[in-house]
Structure formats: structure tokens, C-alpha cells
């Protein structure tokens, strides 16, 4: 089990508690010359810069979480990249869940919060995740207590009594809502990879995606269908449909994705998981449901 200090949720009310909570976490690390990185939504970044001042802001790596964590499945590898280039124990502030995120984004960010508990050896990285208790739903905060071994509430550190280990809360595993009946559905096998790419490009263009986005979505779906051919017994099914502001593609097959960190950690290109890692970088949101009856991967492109 991860020790409480490895991954703490900061339950804050208002800007003052927010700033104090983060300061109490980063100040000892800065004093000890250890690396610090902060990834929070842009408005919070501005708030932090004000508090930290220019001098300290330069010592800390600052990221817009709406960018690095738009797809929460990207966050672990983005932290890994910092760990690799900065010697010393990294102190990382990450706010992947903020008021206004969609229900499916919050669900996937909650899954990320559970899985990050198995991403590092104990002591390698310390993570603090701010949660806005005045504006987030109670269910979100209850899940945060399950996914964080440590909690900071009203300035006090405590272990979380309901911490459940690196296991996503049950709601994260609920089946995805059915695609709309008008969605396009095509089955594919090993001979159809090129045809599927053309189909995705055509649909994405028709949906109004930018040219670069069309190419990225085509590549992402190609990686998924390629995984199906490589790992699942037979071919699979591709579904494509539009939602307001985004195009969604879904690949279904008989395979099981056994490693919960698949596509979330950056392995060497020679080993497995590269395709799914690329999908996570290329798409705005990736939802994976996998089990004994097969896998569904739903990707969103805006």
C-alpha cells in the first residue's frame, strides 16, 4: 500500500486554503533543492504565480492541466518525463478534476487517480491533488477519499480511512452508454486497416475537424484496429458518431487489456503499449472498458 504522503488529496475551500495547502507541500521541497512541478487549470496557475512571485515560479515547472491532462490517461507519462529529466524526489501538484469538467472526463480522471498509486516505487514521487470541496459533487469527493492514501483537510494531514489501493472505484467500470442508433458500424479484419483509415478520415472531415486533427484521429484509430488484429483472436468492430463539438470512434474486440497501466506509461518503442500510448496522446479523451468478454475503447476528438 502506498504511504499517505505518496499521494494526498488537498480538500480546499477557497483560494486561501488552496494557496496555503500547495505552499505547505512545495516549500520544504524547494528548501531542500528538490524538483517541484505543478499542473493545474490555467486560472489557478495565474493565482499561484501571484503567490509564488517570479523567483519561485521560475524554480517550479508549471503546466496547464487542461492541456497536459485533458485526456487524464496522459498524466502519468507526463510526470514520468519530469522524473526522468530532473534528479531528486519530485513533488508534483496535479489537479485533474475541477468543476466544469464533463462527467466522463471526471470518471476517467478518477480512474487515473487510482492508477497513479501503482505508477512509482514508494518514495520516488510525492503527489498532491487539490479538490475544490465547495463546487465539486460529494460523490467526486467520496471517490477522492478512496483513491488517495492521504488527505489534507482544513490544513491537517491524515490517512484516508477509505483508501482502496490502485483500484478504480466501481463507477469507473460501469459499461459505457450505448452509441446512438444512427452511429456508423463496420466490422474489420486484417485486410481492412487501410479501408478503415480512409473511412475515419472521411467521417472526421465531414464532421468538420481540422486537417491535422483528421490525420491524428485516423492514426489513433489505426493504432486501435492494429492492436485488435495483433492481440484479439478475430477482427473487431468500429463505430463512429458525432456528439456536439466532437467526433467519437469506438473499437470493440474480443481481447483483454490485462495491464491497467497500458498506454499510460511511456515504455520504449520496442515494447508493447506504444500504440495505446500514442492513442492517449492523440485524443482528447480515451475511455477503455475491458474484461473477460472483450474490450471497448472509445476515443473523443475535438
Amino acid at each position, binding site marked *: 500500500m502506498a504511504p499517505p504522503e505518496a499521494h494526498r488529496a488537498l480538500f480546499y475551500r477557497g483560494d486561501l486554503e488552496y494557496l496555503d495547502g500547495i505552499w505547505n507541500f512545495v516549500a520544504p521541497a524547494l528548501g531542500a533543492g528538490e524538483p517541484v512541478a505543478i499542473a493545474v487549470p490555467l486560472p489557478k496557475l495565474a493565482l499561484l504565480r501571484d503567490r509564488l512571485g517570479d523567483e519561485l515560479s521560475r524554480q517550479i515547472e508549471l503546466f496547464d492541466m487542461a492541456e497536459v491532462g485533458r485526456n487524464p490517461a496522459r498524466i502519468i507519462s507526463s510526470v514520468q518525463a519530469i522524473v526522468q529529466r530532473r534528479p531528486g524526489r519530485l513533488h508534483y501538484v496535479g489537479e485533474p478534476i475541477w468543476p466544469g469538467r464533463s462527467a466522463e472526463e471526471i470518471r476517467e480522471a478518477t480512474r487515473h487517480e487510482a492508477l497513479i498509486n501503482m505508477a512509482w516505487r514508494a518514495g520516488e514521487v510525492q503527489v498532491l491533488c487539490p479538490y475544490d470541496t465547495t463546487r465539486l459533487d460529494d460523490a467526486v469527493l467520496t471517490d477522492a477519499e478512496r483513491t488517495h492514501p492521504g488527505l489534507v483537510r482544513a490544513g491537517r494531514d491524515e490517512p484516508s480511512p477509505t483508501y482502496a489501493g490502485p483500484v478504480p472505484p466501481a463507477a469507473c467500470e460501469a459499461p459505457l452508454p450505448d452509441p446512438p442508433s444512427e452511429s456508423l458500424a463496420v466490422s474489420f479484419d*486484417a*485486410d481492412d*486497416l*487501410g479501408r478503415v*483509415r480512409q473511412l475515419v478520415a472521411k467521417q472526421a472531415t465531414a464532421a468538420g475537424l481540422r486537417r*491535422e486533427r483528421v*490525420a*491524428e484521429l485516423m*492514426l489513433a484509430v*489505426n*493504432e486501435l484496429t*492494429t492492436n485488435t*488484429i*495483433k492481440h484479439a483472436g478475430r477482427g473487431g468492430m468500429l463505430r463512429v458518431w458525432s456528439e456536439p463539438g466532437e467526433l467519437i470512434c469506438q473499437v470493440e474486440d474480443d481481447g483483454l487489456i490485462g495491464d491497467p497501466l497500458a498506454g499510460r506509461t511511456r515504455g520504449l*518503442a*520496442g515494447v508493447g503499449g*506504444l*500504440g495505446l500510448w*500514442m492513442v492517449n*496522446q*492523440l485524443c482528447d479523451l480515451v475511455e477503455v472498458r475491458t474484461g473477460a468478454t472483450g474490450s471497448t475503447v472509445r476515443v473523443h476528438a475535438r
Partner: protein
Amino acid sequence: MNRDFSVEERRQGDAAVLMVSGELDLRTGPELEERLTGAFRSGIELVILDLRQIDFMDSTGLRVLLAAHQRAHETGRRFALVRGADQVERVLTLTGVRDLLTVVDAPEELLTAGESSEEG
């Protein structure tokens, strides 16, 4: 054989230049891998893979490039790419693989550079 995919090889001095065209994916990757393996024969010090005519490349293609890079490294030879279209560049930069490889705009850059360095 795969339609819409081809590899043409020419030899220049101790260099082999492979011009590949079409879509590089799970179906065509093994063919390129075989041709690249064959290109590293005795007497060849430099293998250049020209990607300018590639319309599409995915992680399968990337693995083929990395295998060639590895083979060159292990046998004390050189391996280089000729820069491909935007899509190919995107895959190389996204994955960080581009930083590992030598990339040029045209094979001639390396062919002449190679000869002059031998003279010097």
C-alpha cells in the same frame, strides 16, 4: 505482395538507399523489415531509408525503423532517414523517436558528406 507499397534499393559506394513508397502499417511493415535486414549486408556502411514517398506510417513502421537503428548500432554501421511528409514527422516527433535517429532532407547530404569524410 502488397499493392500500393514498394521498396526500391540502389547502391552508391558503401551506401544502400532504400526508397519506400505507399502506406507503412501492420501489413507492409514486415516487408520493409525484411528489405532493411537485407540491406545491412557486407560492404555496406550506411543505410538510408527515404520516406519522402510514404503516405502513412504508424507504430508498426516506427518499430521497423527502430529495429534498423538498433541493427546499425550493434554492427557499427550507420542508419539514416530522409524526412517524410507531415504525417510521418508527426509520428516521429510525438514518440520522441526522431531525437534518436539521423534525419536529413535528401540522401545526397549523407552520400557526399560520407565520401568527403573518408578522404579527410
